[in-house]
C-alpha cells in the first residue's frame, strides 16, 4: 500500500505571532474590564475584591509575559 507523505510549508513569522498575541491581549483587556466593572459595581466586600483582583491579574500577567517571552524566543531562534 503506498504511504501518503505530504510536505506542507506554512511559514509562521514572529510578526504573525505578535498579531495573534495582540488580539489575545485585546480580548483579555475587554474581558478584564467587564469583570472588574462587575466586582466594583455589585461586589461589596473590599477585602474580597482586592484579593480576587490580585490573584487574577498576577497570574494573567505571568501568562501574558510568558507568551511574549516565547514569541521573542521564537524570533531569536529564526535568526
Amino acid at each position, binding site marked *: 500500500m503506498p504511504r501518503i507523505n505530504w510536505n*506542507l510549508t506554512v511559514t*509562521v513569522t514572529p510578526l504573525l505571532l505578535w498579531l495573534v498575541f495582540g488580539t489575545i491581549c485585546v480580548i483579555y483587556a475587554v474581558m478584564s474590564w467587564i469583570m472588574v466593572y462587575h466586582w466594583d459595581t*455589585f461586589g461589596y466586600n473590599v477585602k474580597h475584591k482586592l484579593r480576587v483582583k490580585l490573584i487574577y491579574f498576577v497570574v494573567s500577567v505571568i*501568562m*501574558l509575559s510568558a507568551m511574549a517571552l516565547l514569541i521573542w524566543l521564537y524570533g531569536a531562534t*529564526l535568526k
Partner: protein
Amino acid sequence: MIQLNSDEIVVFEIRKHWFYIFWRALALLIVTAIIAGGVYLAVYFSSRYFQLNIGGSYEIIFALGFLAVLLIAWMSFFAFWTKYYLDYWVVTNERIVDVDLMGFFHQETAVVRLDQIQDVTIRVNGFFQNIFGFGTIQIQTAGESREFIMPNITNPEGVKETIFRLQNEAMEKPKKVEIAV
C-alpha cells in the same frame, strides 16, 4: 448593595455551595486538557503522514498555543466566579433579598417579606447534595410571585430553621402604626 430600613439588621448572607464553582472549574480543566492534549496528539500522529514546516521551533508554537488556551480558561473561570460571587441572598430580620446576576450587565433583585412566607420546603436531591450537605430551598409566599427559590444552598436545614425563627420574631414584634391627625 441593598438599602436597609431604619431598624433592619442583616442576620446572614448566603451563597451557593462551593461545589457549584468547583464543578465548573473541574469541567473547565478537563476541556483545557482535552484541547491541549488533542492538538498535541493530532500533530504527533499527523507527522507520520505529512511534514509540516513552519520555519521555527514546534515546541515554542505549541507552548504558545497551550498558554493561550490556559489564559482563556483562566478568564472563563473568573467569569464563572463572578456569577457565583454576585448571586447571593441576604436574610434580614424583616425580609429575604435575592440578588441575582442573570448575565453580564444584568442584575435582578427580588424581595420577600418574612411575614409573607407561608411555607418553606427543602429539596436535597442526589449523591453530591447529600454528601456535601447542600440543596434547594423553596419558599411559598403570599405575595405576587408565589414561589421564591434558593438553589444549591449550603446547610438548607439550618437556613430553614433560621428563617422560621426570624419569621416568628417578626410576627411577635409590635408593628408601628402611623395615624395621620
